[in-house]
Protein backbone atom coordinates (compact mmCIF):
# COMPACT_ATOMS: atom_id res chain seq x y z
CA UNK A 1 0.00 0.00 0.00
CA UNK A 2 1.47 3.29 -1.11
CA UNK A 3 0.24 5.19 1.94
CA UNK A 4 2.34 3.04 4.24
CA UNK A 5 5.35 3.18 1.96
CA UNK A 6 5.20 6.96 1.67
CA UNK A 7 4.84 7.37 5.42
CA UNK A 8 7.93 5.24 6.02
CA UNK A 9 9.97 7.08 3.40
CA UNK A 10 9.02 10.43 4.93
CA UNK A 11 10.08 9.33 8.38
CA UNK A 12 13.36 7.89 7.05
CA UNK A 13 14.10 11.16 5.24
CA UNK A 14 13.39 13.12 8.40
CA UNK A 15 15.59 10.81 10.45
CA UNK A 16 18.37 11.15 7.89
CA UNK A 17 18.11 14.93 8.21
CA UNK A 18 18.41 14.71 12.00
CA UNK A 19 21.49 12.49 11.64
CA UNK A 20 23.06 15.07 9.34
CA UNK A 21 22.26 17.92 11.72
CA UNK A 22 23.83 15.99 14.56
CA UNK A 23 27.16 16.47 12.81
CA UNK A 24 26.92 20.27 13.16
CA UNK A 25 29.20 22.22 15.49
CA UNK A 26 26.94 22.69 18.47
CA UNK A 27 28.22 25.29 20.89
CA UNK A 28 25.94 23.99 23.62
CA UNK A 29 24.69 20.52 24.45
CA UNK A 30 21.02 21.41 24.75
CA UNK A 31 20.65 21.79 20.99
CA UNK A 32 22.05 18.28 20.59
CA UNK A 33 19.77 16.97 23.31
CA UNK A 34 16.75 18.47 21.55
CA UNK A 35 17.77 16.69 18.35
CA UNK A 36 18.29 13.47 20.29
CA UNK A 37 14.77 13.68 21.73
CA UNK A 38 13.29 14.21 18.27
CA UNK A 39 15.37 11.36 16.86
CA UNK A 40 14.05 8.96 19.49
CA UNK A 41 10.46 9.91 18.72
CA UNK A 42 10.91 9.46 14.98
CA UNK A 43 12.61 6.09 15.52
CA UNK A 44 9.76 5.01 17.80
CA UNK A 45 7.23 5.94 15.13
CA UNK A 46 9.25 4.22 12.44
CA UNK A 47 9.52 1.07 14.47
CA UNK A 48 5.78 1.01 15.00
CA UNK A 49 5.09 1.79 11.36
CA UNK A 50 7.25 -1.11 10.25
CA UNK A 51 5.13 -3.48 12.29
CA UNK A 52 2.09 -2.49 10.25
CA UNK A 53 1.24 -4.12 6.98
CA UNK A 54 -1.33 -3.88 4.23
CA UNK A 55 -3.40 -6.33 6.27
CA UNK A 56 -3.69 -3.97 9.21
CA UNK A 57 -6.96 -2.25 9.95
CA UNK A 58 -7.27 0.38 7.18
CA UNK A 59 -8.68 3.01 9.52
CA UNK A 60 -5.90 2.49 12.04
CA UNK A 61 -3.34 2.50 9.26
CA UNK A 62 -4.67 5.74 7.84
CA UNK A 63 -4.78 7.29 11.30
CA UNK A 64 -1.22 6.39 12.14
CA UNK A 65 0.17 7.51 8.77
CA UNK A 66 -1.60 10.80 9.27
CA UNK A 67 -0.18 11.09 12.78
CA UNK A 68 3.37 10.59 11.54
CA UNK A 69 2.79 13.27 8.94
CA UNK A 70 1.66 15.60 11.72
CA UNK A 71 4.85 14.78 13.60
CA UNK A 72 6.99 15.86 10.65
CA UNK A 73 4.96 19.01 10.08
CA UNK A 74 5.29 19.99 13.73
CA UNK A 75 8.95 19.25 14.14
CA UNK A 76 10.55 20.28 10.85
CA UNK A 77 10.49 23.95 11.95
CA UNK A 78 12.18 22.90 15.19
CA UNK A 79 14.92 21.10 13.24
CA UNK A 80 15.57 24.34 11.38
CA UNK A 81 15.53 26.25 14.64
CA UNK A 82 18.06 23.88 16.21
CA UNK A 83 20.27 24.06 13.13
CA UNK A 84 20.27 27.86 13.25
CA UNK A 85 21.31 27.71 16.90
CA UNK A 86 24.77 26.73 15.63
CA UNK A 87 25.17 29.83 13.47
CA UNK A 88 27.96 32.14 14.57
CA UNK A 89 25.72 35.15 13.97
CA UNK A 90 24.11 34.36 17.33
CA UNK A 91 25.22 36.07 20.52
CA UNK A 92 26.65 32.89 22.02
CA UNK A 93 28.09 34.80 24.96
CA UNK A 94 24.56 35.41 26.21
CA UNK A 95 23.74 31.72 26.37
CA UNK A 96 25.08 30.94 29.82
CA UNK A 97 23.48 33.88 31.66
CA UNK A 98 20.18 33.29 29.87
CA UNK A 99 20.29 29.63 30.83
CA UNK A 100 20.88 30.72 34.43
CA UNK A 101 17.88 33.00 34.18
CA UNK A 102 15.73 30.24 32.63
CA UNK A 103 16.68 27.90 35.49
CA UNK A 104 15.97 30.57 38.06
CA UNK A 105 12.47 31.04 36.62
CA UNK A 106 11.59 27.50 35.61
CA UNK A 107 13.68 25.21 37.77
CA UNK A 108 17.11 23.58 37.60
CA UNK A 109 16.07 21.10 34.90
CA UNK A 110 15.35 23.82 32.33
CA UNK A 111 17.24 23.51 29.05
CA UNK A 112 17.75 26.31 26.62
CA UNK A 113 18.24 26.66 22.88
CA UNK A 114 18.97 30.16 21.61
CA UNK A 115 18.63 30.55 17.89
CA UNK A 116 17.76 32.95 15.15
CA UNK A 117 14.60 33.10 13.12
CA UNK A 118 14.02 34.02 9.51
CA UNK A 119 10.99 35.78 10.84
CA UNK A 120 11.16 39.26 12.27
CA UNK A 121 9.13 38.50 15.39
CA UNK A 122 11.02 37.00 18.34
CA UNK A 123 9.66 33.58 18.87
CA UNK A 124 9.44 30.78 21.38
CA UNK A 125 8.21 27.22 20.93
CA UNK A 126 6.07 26.51 23.94
CA UNK A 127 5.82 23.48 26.16
CA UNK A 128 6.40 20.95 23.47
CA UNK A 129 5.44 17.46 24.66
CA UNK A 130 8.62 15.97 23.17
CA UNK A 131 10.80 18.72 24.62
CA UNK A 132 9.10 19.35 27.94
CA UNK A 133 11.96 21.06 29.75
CA UNK A 134 13.24 23.03 26.80
CA UNK A 135 12.95 26.75 26.30
CA UNK A 136 13.53 27.62 22.65
CA UNK A 137 14.09 31.31 22.02
CA UNK A 138 14.71 32.85 18.62
CA UNK A 139 15.57 36.42 17.74
CA UNK A 140 15.24 37.72 14.17
CA UNK A 141 18.32 36.61 12.20
CA UNK A 142 19.30 40.16 11.30
CA UNK A 143 19.43 41.07 15.00
CA UNK A 144 20.50 37.82 16.64
CA UNK A 145 24.01 39.15 17.23
CA UNK A 146 22.77 42.47 18.54
CA UNK A 147 23.55 42.35 22.25
CA UNK A 148 21.22 45.24 22.95
CA UNK A 149 18.22 43.09 21.99
CA UNK A 150 19.03 40.28 24.42
CA UNK A 151 16.45 41.71 26.89
CA UNK A 152 13.71 40.59 24.50
CA UNK A 153 14.51 37.06 25.63
CA UNK A 154 12.85 38.16 28.88
CA UNK A 155 9.49 38.29 27.09
CA UNK A 156 10.00 34.81 25.64
CA UNK A 157 11.05 33.44 29.03
CA UNK A 158 7.86 35.02 30.33
CA UNK A 159 5.82 32.72 28.06
CA UNK A 160 7.54 29.68 29.54
CA UNK A 161 6.96 31.01 33.04
CA UNK A 162 3.30 31.71 32.27
CA UNK A 163 2.74 28.11 31.20
CA UNK A 164 5.06 26.50 33.74
CA UNK A 165 3.45 28.24 36.70
CA UNK A 166 -0.05 27.85 35.21
CA UNK A 167 -1.04 31.48 35.38
CA UNK A 168 -3.88 30.91 32.95
CA UNK A 169 -5.55 28.58 35.45
CA UNK A 170 -4.80 30.98 38.31
CA UNK A 171 -6.32 33.97 36.59
CA UNK A 172 -8.95 32.24 34.45
CA UNK A 173 -11.99 32.56 36.73
CA UNK A 174 -11.33 36.17 37.62
CA UNK A 175 -10.78 37.08 34.00
CA UNK A 176 -13.99 35.34 32.98
CA UNK A 177 -15.90 37.34 35.61
CA UNK A 178 -14.24 40.47 34.34
CA UNK A 179 -15.41 39.71 30.80
CA UNK A 180 -18.93 39.01 32.02
CA UNK A 181 -19.02 42.23 34.02
CA UNK A 182 -17.75 44.19 31.03
CA UNK A 183 -20.58 42.76 28.93
CA UNK A 184 -23.15 43.48 31.60
CA UNK A 185 -21.95 47.05 31.83
CA UNK A 186 -22.61 47.38 28.11
CA UNK A 187 -25.77 45.31 27.98
CA UNK A 188 -27.67 47.33 25.36
CA UNK A 189 -24.72 46.99 22.98
CA UNK A 190 -24.58 43.26 23.63
CA UNK A 191 -28.26 42.89 22.93
CA UNK A 192 -27.84 44.89 19.76
CA UNK A 193 -25.09 42.68 18.33
CA UNK A 194 -26.81 39.48 19.48
CA UNK A 195 -30.48 40.40 18.83
CA UNK A 196 -31.72 36.80 18.63
CA UNK A 197 -30.37 35.65 21.96
CA UNK A 198 -32.97 37.12 24.30
CA UNK A 199 -31.43 36.23 27.66
CA UNK A 200 -31.18 38.02 30.97
CA UNK A 201 -27.87 39.15 32.44
CA UNK A 202 -27.99 36.35 35.00
CA UNK A 203 -28.18 33.78 32.20
CA UNK A 204 -25.04 35.06 30.55
CA UNK A 205 -22.92 32.48 32.35
CA UNK A 206 -25.40 29.61 32.23
CA UNK A 207 -27.14 29.69 28.88
CA UNK A 208 -25.06 27.57 26.49
CA UNK A 209 -25.74 29.82 23.51
CA UNK A 210 -24.84 32.88 25.56
CA UNK A 211 -21.63 31.28 26.77
CA UNK A 212 -20.60 30.74 23.18
CA UNK A 213 -20.97 34.45 22.47
CA UNK A 214 -18.39 35.63 24.98
CA UNK A 215 -15.96 32.71 24.98
CA UNK A 216 -13.99 34.27 22.19
CA UNK A 217 -13.66 37.52 24.15
CA UNK A 218 -12.42 35.58 27.18
CA UNK A 219 -9.91 33.67 25.04
CA UNK A 220 -8.63 36.88 23.44
CA UNK A 221 -8.41 38.57 26.82
CA UNK A 222 -6.41 35.65 28.22
CA UNK A 223 -3.96 35.72 25.31
CA UNK A 224 -3.60 39.48 25.72
CA UNK A 225 -2.98 38.96 29.40
CA UNK A 226 -0.22 36.46 28.63
CA UNK A 227 1.48 38.94 26.30
CA UNK A 228 1.24 41.73 28.88
CA UNK A 229 2.57 39.36 31.53
CA UNK A 230 5.58 38.57 29.31
CA UNK A 231 6.26 42.27 28.68
CA UNK A 232 6.18 42.92 32.40
CA UNK A 233 8.47 39.96 33.09
CA UNK A 234 10.92 41.37 30.52
CA UNK A 235 10.81 44.78 32.19
CA UNK A 236 11.24 43.33 35.68
CA UNK A 237 14.24 41.23 34.65
CA UNK A 238 15.95 43.69 32.32
CA UNK A 239 14.80 47.10 33.49
CA UNK A 240 14.72 49.91 30.96
CA UNK A 241 16.87 47.89 28.55
CA UNK A 242 13.78 45.77 27.86
CA UNK A 243 11.71 48.84 27.04
CA UNK A 244 14.42 50.18 24.73
CA UNK A 245 14.85 46.83 22.99
CA UNK A 246 11.09 46.57 22.52
CA UNK A 247 10.96 50.05 21.01
CA UNK A 248 13.95 49.31 18.76
CA UNK A 249 12.35 46.17 17.44
CA UNK A 250 8.78 47.26 16.72
CA UNK A 251 8.23 51.01 17.07
CA UNK A 252 6.27 52.80 15.75
CA UNK A 253 4.37 49.71 14.49
CA UNK A 254 4.57 47.43 11.52
CA UNK A 255 2.11 47.62 8.65
CA UNK A 256 -1.07 45.62 8.83
CA UNK A 257 -3.98 45.13 11.16
CA UNK A 258 -3.91 44.43 14.82
CA UNK A 259 -4.05 40.88 16.13
CA UNK A 260 -6.83 40.39 18.73
CA UNK A 261 -4.56 38.15 20.81
CA UNK A 262 -2.22 41.05 21.55
CA UNK A 263 -3.10 44.29 23.32
CA UNK A 264 -2.73 47.13 20.89
CA UNK A 265 0.83 48.40 20.62
CA UNK A 266 0.41 51.78 22.26
CA UNK A 267 -1.32 50.14 25.20
CA UNK A 268 1.51 47.60 25.54
CA UNK A 269 3.95 50.48 25.76
CA UNK A 270 1.71 52.36 28.20
CA UNK A 271 1.47 49.22 30.35
CA UNK A 272 5.27 49.08 30.36
CA UNK A 273 5.32 52.68 31.58
CA UNK A 274 2.92 51.72 34.35
CA UNK A 275 5.03 48.74 35.39
CA UNK A 276 8.19 50.86 35.18
CA UNK A 277 6.71 53.38 37.63
CA UNK A 278 5.92 50.56 40.05
CA UNK A 279 9.34 48.92 39.70
CA UNK A 280 11.32 52.18 39.91
CA UNK A 281 12.54 51.78 36.36
CA UNK A 282 13.09 55.10 34.65
CA UNK A 283 11.78 55.38 31.11
CA UNK A 284 12.10 58.40 28.87
CA UNK A 285 9.11 60.68 29.14
CA UNK A 286 6.57 60.02 26.40
CA UNK A 287 7.92 56.50 25.86
CA UNK A 288 4.54 55.11 24.87
CA UNK A 289 4.06 57.85 22.31
CA UNK A 290 6.86 56.41 20.17
CA UNK A 291 4.35 53.66 19.33
CA UNK A 292 1.19 53.87 17.31
CA UNK A 293 -1.78 51.56 17.42
CA UNK A 294 -2.51 49.11 14.65
CA UNK A 295 -5.75 49.57 12.76
CA UNK A 296 -8.46 47.25 14.05
CA UNK A 297 -8.84 44.03 12.11
CA UNK A 298 -11.86 43.74 9.89
CA UNK A 299 -14.39 42.13 12.15
CA UNK A 300 -18.16 41.80 12.24
CA UNK A 301 -20.05 44.00 14.68
CA UNK A 302 -20.05 41.07 17.07
CA UNK A 303 -16.30 40.66 16.66
CA UNK A 304 -15.71 44.36 17.26
CA UNK A 305 -17.80 44.25 20.41
CA UNK A 306 -16.00 41.15 21.70
CA UNK A 307 -12.58 42.64 20.99
CA UNK A 308 -13.44 45.79 22.88
CA UNK A 309 -14.70 43.66 25.80
CA UNK A 310 -11.48 41.62 25.70
CA UNK A 311 -9.43 44.82 25.66
CA UNK A 312 -11.19 46.32 28.66
CA UNK A 313 -11.03 43.03 30.60
CA UNK A 314 -7.31 42.55 30.02
CA UNK A 315 -6.58 46.24 30.70
CA UNK A 316 -8.27 45.99 34.08
CA UNK A 317 -5.80 43.25 35.05
CA UNK A 318 -2.58 45.15 34.44
CA UNK A 319 -2.02 46.34 38.00
CA UNK A 320 -2.62 42.84 39.24
CA UNK A 321 -0.17 41.46 36.69
CA UNK A 322 2.45 43.98 37.77
CA UNK A 323 2.08 42.80 41.35
CA UNK A 324 1.96 39.14 40.38
CA UNK A 325 5.16 39.38 38.33
CA UNK A 326 6.96 41.18 41.15
CA UNK A 327 5.79 38.66 43.72
CA UNK A 328 6.61 35.67 41.54
CA UNK A 329 10.04 36.80 40.40
CA UNK A 330 11.06 38.10 43.80
CA UNK A 331 10.01 34.75 45.22
CA UNK A 332 12.31 33.06 42.73
CA UNK A 333 15.16 35.45 43.59
CA UNK A 334 15.37 36.53 39.95
CA UNK A 335 18.26 38.93 39.42
CA UNK A 336 17.46 42.50 38.38
CA UNK A 337 19.65 45.32 37.08
CA UNK A 338 21.52 47.08 39.89
CA UNK A 339 21.93 50.89 39.57
CA UNK A 340 25.46 50.88 41.06
CA UNK A 341 26.57 48.20 38.60
CA UNK A 342 25.02 50.10 35.69
CA UNK A 343 26.95 53.23 36.65
CA UNK A 344 30.20 51.29 36.99
CA UNK A 345 29.68 49.49 33.71
CA UNK A 346 29.04 52.83 31.99
CA UNK A 347 32.33 54.10 33.37
CA UNK A 348 34.12 51.08 31.94
CA UNK A 349 32.40 51.46 28.56
CA UNK A 350 33.60 55.05 28.43
CA UNK A 351 37.14 53.69 28.58
CA UNK A 352 36.22 51.21 25.82
CA UNK A 353 36.64 48.23 28.09
CA UNK A 354 34.14 45.57 29.19
CA UNK A 355 32.29 45.77 32.46
CA UNK A 356 33.35 43.63 35.35
CA UNK A 357 31.92 42.51 38.66
CA UNK A 358 28.33 42.79 37.49
CA UNK A 359 26.35 40.28 39.51
CA UNK A 360 23.30 40.82 37.29
CA UNK A 361 23.97 40.61 33.59
CA UNK A 362 20.98 42.83 32.96
CA UNK A 363 23.07 45.65 34.47
CA UNK A 364 25.42 45.30 31.48
CA UNK A 365 22.52 45.61 29.05
CA UNK A 366 21.10 48.67 30.79
CA UNK A 367 24.55 50.28 30.70
CA UNK A 368 24.76 49.37 27.01
CA UNK A 369 21.55 51.23 26.20
CA UNK A 370 22.69 54.25 28.21
CA UNK A 371 25.95 54.21 26.27
CA UNK A 372 24.08 54.02 22.96
CA UNK A 373 22.00 57.04 23.87
CA UNK A 374 25.04 59.02 25.06
CA UNK A 375 25.81 61.13 22.01
CA UNK A 376 29.08 62.37 23.46
CA UNK A 377 30.46 58.89 24.04
CA UNK A 378 33.77 58.28 22.20
CA UNK A 379 33.24 61.44 20.14
CA UNK A 380 36.79 62.53 20.91
CA UNK A 381 38.35 59.22 19.92
CA UNK A 382 39.34 58.37 16.36
CA UNK A 383 37.48 55.18 15.41
CA UNK A 384 37.82 52.77 12.56
CA UNK A 385 34.45 51.23 13.41
CA UNK A 386 31.06 52.64 14.19
CA UNK A 387 29.98 53.25 17.76
CA UNK A 388 27.34 50.53 17.39
CA UNK A 389 29.94 47.96 16.38
CA UNK A 390 32.25 48.79 19.26
CA UNK A 391 29.40 48.80 21.72
CA UNK A 392 28.19 45.41 20.54
CA UNK A 393 31.67 43.96 21.01
CA UNK A 394 32.10 45.46 24.46
CA UNK A 395 28.67 44.36 25.67
CA UNK A 396 29.12 40.78 24.49
CA UNK A 397 32.58 40.66 26.00
CA UNK A 398 31.18 42.06 29.24
CA UNK A 399 28.62 39.25 29.29
CA UNK A 400 31.39 36.70 28.78
CA UNK A 401 33.39 38.30 31.60
CA UNK A 402 30.25 38.06 33.76
CA UNK A 403 30.06 34.33 33.00
CA UNK A 404 33.75 33.85 33.82
CA UNK A 405 33.41 35.73 37.10
CA UNK A 406 30.36 33.67 38.02
CA UNK A 407 32.24 30.45 37.27
CA UNK A 408 35.24 31.60 39.28
CA UNK A 409 33.10 32.52 42.26
CA UNK A 410 30.99 29.35 42.30
CA UNK A 411 33.48 26.68 41.26
CA UNK A 412 35.46 25.34 44.22
Amino acid at each position, binding site marked *: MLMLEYAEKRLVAFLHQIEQLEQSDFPYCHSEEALGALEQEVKRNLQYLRQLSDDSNPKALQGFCSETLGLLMNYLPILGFVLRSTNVRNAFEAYSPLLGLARCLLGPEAKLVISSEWDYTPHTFLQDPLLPRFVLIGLPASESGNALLIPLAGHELGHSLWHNDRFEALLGDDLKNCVLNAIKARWPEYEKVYPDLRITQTELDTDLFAVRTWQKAAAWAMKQLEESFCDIVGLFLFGDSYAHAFAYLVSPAWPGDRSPVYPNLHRRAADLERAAAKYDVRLQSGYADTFTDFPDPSLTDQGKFLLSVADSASASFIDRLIETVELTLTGKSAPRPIPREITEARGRFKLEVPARQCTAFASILCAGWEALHDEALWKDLP*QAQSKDEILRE*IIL*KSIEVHEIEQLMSTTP
Partner: protein
Amino acid sequence: MILNSSQIAHLLEAQDEGADPLVITPFPNIEKVRASGSASIDLRLGCWFVTLRRPRTSELTFADPTEPSPSEARLTKKHYIPFGKKFVLHPGCFVLGITLEWIRLKRNLAGYVTGRSSWGRRGLVIATAIGVHPGFTGCLTLELSNMGEVPLKIQPGTRICQLFLHEVEPQADQLVGRGSFNAKRQPVLGIVRVDEFAEKLANPLA
Protein backbone atom coordinates in the same frame (compact mmCIF):
# COMPACT_ATOMS: atom_id res chain seq x y z
CA MET B 1 62.07 49.81 30.03
CA ILE B 2 60.16 46.55 30.15
CA LEU B 3 57.76 46.43 33.09
CA ASN B 4 58.25 43.72 35.65
CA SER B 5 55.39 41.78 37.17
CA SER B 6 55.15 44.04 40.23
CA GLN B 7 54.86 47.13 38.04
CA ILE B 8 52.21 45.45 35.91
CA ALA B 9 50.31 44.39 39.03
CA HIS B 10 50.53 47.92 40.40
CA LEU B 11 49.11 49.41 37.20
CA LEU B 12 46.32 46.84 37.06
CA GLU B 13 45.31 47.52 40.63
CA ALA B 14 44.79 51.14 39.64
CA GLN B 15 42.63 50.25 36.63
CA ASP B 16 39.53 51.88 38.06
CA GLU B 17 41.31 55.16 38.65
CA GLY B 18 42.15 57.91 36.21
CA ALA B 19 41.24 58.52 32.61
CA ASP B 20 43.95 56.41 31.04
CA PRO B 21 44.40 53.16 32.91
CA LEU B 22 45.98 49.86 31.91
CA VAL B 23 43.12 47.37 31.83
CA ILE B 24 43.11 43.61 31.49
CA THR B 25 39.67 41.98 31.73
CA PRO B 26 38.89 39.36 33.07
CA PHE B 27 40.95 40.68 35.91
CA PRO B 28 43.98 38.46 36.50
CA ASN B 29 44.94 37.11 39.90
CA ILE B 30 47.08 40.03 41.03
CA GLU B 31 48.89 38.09 43.72
CA LYS B 32 49.93 35.49 41.20
CA VAL B 33 51.02 38.18 38.73
CA ARG B 34 53.11 39.87 41.40
CA ALA B 35 54.54 36.61 42.70
CA SER B 36 55.52 35.37 39.25
CA GLY B 37 58.56 37.60 39.23
CA SER B 38 58.45 37.59 35.43
CA ALA B 39 58.63 40.47 33.00
CA SER B 40 55.32 39.71 31.33
CA ILE B 41 51.75 38.74 32.05
CA ASP B 42 50.16 35.54 30.79
CA LEU B 43 47.10 35.77 28.57
CA ARG B 44 44.55 33.06 27.91
CA LEU B 45 42.89 31.64 24.84
CA GLY B 46 39.43 32.97 24.01
CA CYS B 47 36.44 31.19 22.49
CA TRP B 48 36.47 32.53 18.93
CA PHE B 49 38.53 31.16 16.04
CA VAL B 50 38.73 32.07 12.39
CA THR B 51 39.87 29.77 9.59
CA LEU B 52 40.34 30.55 5.93
CA ARG B 53 37.76 29.26 3.47
CA ARG B 54 40.37 27.47 1.42
CA PRO B 55 38.07 25.91 -1.21
CA ARG B 56 36.81 29.33 -2.28
CA THR B 57 39.96 31.40 -1.81
CA SER B 58 42.42 31.18 -4.67
CA GLU B 59 44.90 33.54 -3.08
CA LEU B 60 45.31 36.22 -0.49
CA THR B 61 46.97 39.37 -1.63
CA PHE B 62 46.89 43.08 -0.99
CA ALA B 63 43.68 44.96 -1.52
CA ASP B 64 43.30 46.81 -4.78
CA PRO B 65 42.42 50.37 -3.77
CA THR B 66 40.16 50.70 -6.82
CA GLU B 67 38.16 47.60 -5.93
CA PRO B 68 35.98 46.98 -2.89
CA SER B 69 37.81 44.70 -0.47
CA PRO B 70 36.45 41.18 -0.24
CA SER B 71 34.59 40.84 3.02
CA GLU B 72 36.03 38.80 5.85
CA ALA B 73 32.91 36.65 5.69
CA ARG B 74 33.83 35.68 2.13
CA LEU B 75 37.40 34.77 3.00
CA THR B 76 37.01 33.29 6.45
CA LYS B 77 34.81 31.11 8.59
CA LYS B 78 34.21 31.79 12.27
CA HIS B 79 34.10 29.10 14.93
CA TYR B 80 32.90 29.41 18.50
CA ILE B 81 34.31 26.96 21.02
CA PRO B 82 32.61 27.41 24.40
CA PHE B 83 34.36 26.87 27.71
CA GLY B 84 34.89 23.18 28.32
CA LYS B 85 35.20 22.22 24.65
CA LYS B 86 38.38 21.90 22.60
CA PHE B 87 39.62 22.99 19.20
CA VAL B 88 41.90 20.54 17.37
CA LEU B 89 44.71 22.18 15.43
CA HIS B 90 46.22 19.71 13.00
CA PRO B 91 49.87 19.72 11.90
CA GLY B 92 50.53 22.35 9.26
CA CYS B 93 47.25 24.12 9.98
CA PHE B 94 46.87 27.79 10.66
CA VAL B 95 44.03 29.44 12.53
CA LEU B 96 43.39 32.83 14.01
CA GLY B 97 42.56 32.78 17.70
CA ILE B 98 41.90 35.53 20.18
CA THR B 99 42.91 36.28 23.71
CA LEU B 100 40.30 35.77 26.38
CA GLU B 101 41.41 39.03 27.91
CA TRP B 102 40.34 42.41 26.63
CA ILE B 103 43.35 44.70 26.90
CA ARG B 104 43.53 48.46 27.11
CA LEU B 105 46.97 50.02 26.93
CA LYS B 106 47.80 53.39 28.41
CA ARG B 107 49.13 56.05 26.06
CA ASN B 108 52.60 55.58 27.44
CA LEU B 109 52.65 51.80 27.11
CA ALA B 110 53.29 49.47 24.21
CA GLY B 111 53.57 45.75 24.24
CA TYR B 112 54.44 42.63 22.34
CA VAL B 113 53.01 39.18 22.46
CA THR B 114 54.99 35.98 22.37
CA GLY B 115 54.08 32.34 22.79
CA ARG B 116 54.67 30.37 25.91
CA SER B 117 57.59 28.03 25.70
CA SER B 118 55.61 25.02 26.89
CA TRP B 119 53.30 25.38 23.89
CA GLY B 120 56.16 26.25 21.53
CA ARG B 121 57.94 23.03 22.36
CA ARG B 122 54.87 21.13 21.29
CA GLY B 123 54.92 22.86 17.94
CA LEU B 124 52.40 25.63 18.57
CA VAL B 125 53.50 28.99 17.22
CA ILE B 126 51.27 31.63 18.77
CA ALA B 127 51.95 35.02 17.31
CA THR B 128 54.01 36.44 14.55
CA ALA B 129 52.56 39.94 14.32
CA ILE B 130 53.33 40.79 17.86
CA GLY B 131 53.27 44.57 18.38
CA VAL B 132 50.56 46.19 20.48
CA HIS B 133 50.51 49.96 20.22
CA PRO B 134 49.73 52.64 22.81
CA GLY B 135 46.02 53.25 23.19
CA PHE B 136 45.03 49.86 21.82
CA THR B 137 41.86 48.43 23.25
CA GLY B 138 40.32 45.04 22.51
CA CYS B 139 41.21 41.38 22.46
CA LEU B 140 44.42 40.43 20.68
CA THR B 141 44.19 38.33 17.54
CA LEU B 142 46.62 35.42 17.71
CA GLU B 143 48.06 33.60 14.71
CA LEU B 144 48.08 29.99 15.81
CA SER B 145 50.05 27.52 13.76
CA ASN B 146 50.82 23.90 14.50
CA MET B 147 54.37 23.41 13.31
CA GLY B 148 54.64 20.08 15.12
CA GLU B 149 53.85 16.60 13.92
CA VAL B 150 50.84 15.69 16.00
CA PRO B 151 47.45 17.37 16.36
CA LEU B 152 47.13 19.79 19.27
CA LYS B 153 43.97 20.17 21.32
CA ILE B 154 43.62 23.69 22.56
CA GLN B 155 40.96 24.81 24.98
CA PRO B 156 39.53 28.27 25.68
CA GLY B 157 40.67 29.58 29.02
CA THR B 158 44.14 28.01 28.93
CA ARG B 159 47.21 30.23 29.20
CA ILE B 160 48.42 30.56 25.64
CA CYS B 161 50.72 33.54 25.34
CA GLN B 162 52.43 36.29 27.26
CA LEU B 163 52.28 40.04 26.92
CA PHE B 164 55.42 42.07 27.55
CA LEU B 165 54.84 45.76 28.28
CA HIS B 166 57.23 48.64 28.04
CA GLU B 167 56.99 52.35 28.42
CA VAL B 168 57.00 54.70 25.46
CA GLU B 169 57.08 58.46 25.33
CA PRO B 170 53.41 59.39 24.78
CA GLN B 171 52.63 61.47 21.72
CA ALA B 172 50.29 64.32 22.37
CA ASP B 173 46.70 63.38 21.54
CA GLN B 174 47.78 60.68 19.16
CA LEU B 175 46.54 57.17 19.62
CA VAL B 176 48.11 54.88 17.06
CA GLY B 177 46.55 51.65 18.26
CA ARG B 178 43.08 52.49 16.98
CA GLY B 179 42.88 50.82 13.60
CA SER B 180 40.54 48.15 12.34
CA PHE B 181 41.82 45.67 14.94
CA ASN B 182 40.64 47.93 17.74
CA ALA B 183 37.76 46.97 20.06
CA LYS B 184 37.25 43.44 18.75
CA ARG B 185 36.24 40.33 20.64
CA GLN B 186 36.70 38.04 17.65
CA PRO B 187 39.82 37.44 15.55
CA VAL B 188 40.16 39.75 12.59
CA LEU B 189 41.96 39.10 9.31
CA GLY B 190 42.29 42.75 8.44
CA ILE B 191 43.17 44.21 5.07
CA VAL B 192 46.61 44.43 3.50
CA ARG B 193 46.64 47.73 1.67
CA VAL B 194 49.13 49.05 -0.84
CA ASP B 195 50.32 52.48 0.12
CA GLU B 196 51.29 55.25 -2.25
CA PHE B 197 54.96 54.32 -2.04
CA ALA B 198 54.41 50.69 -3.02
CA GLU B 199 51.96 51.73 -5.71
CA LYS B 200 54.56 53.93 -7.37
CA LEU B 201 57.10 51.12 -7.23
CA ALA B 202 54.56 48.80 -8.81
CA ASN B 203 54.19 51.09 -11.82
CA PRO B 204 57.71 51.78 -13.08
CA LEU B 205 58.19 54.00 -16.10
CA ALA B 206 57.61 52.12 -19.28
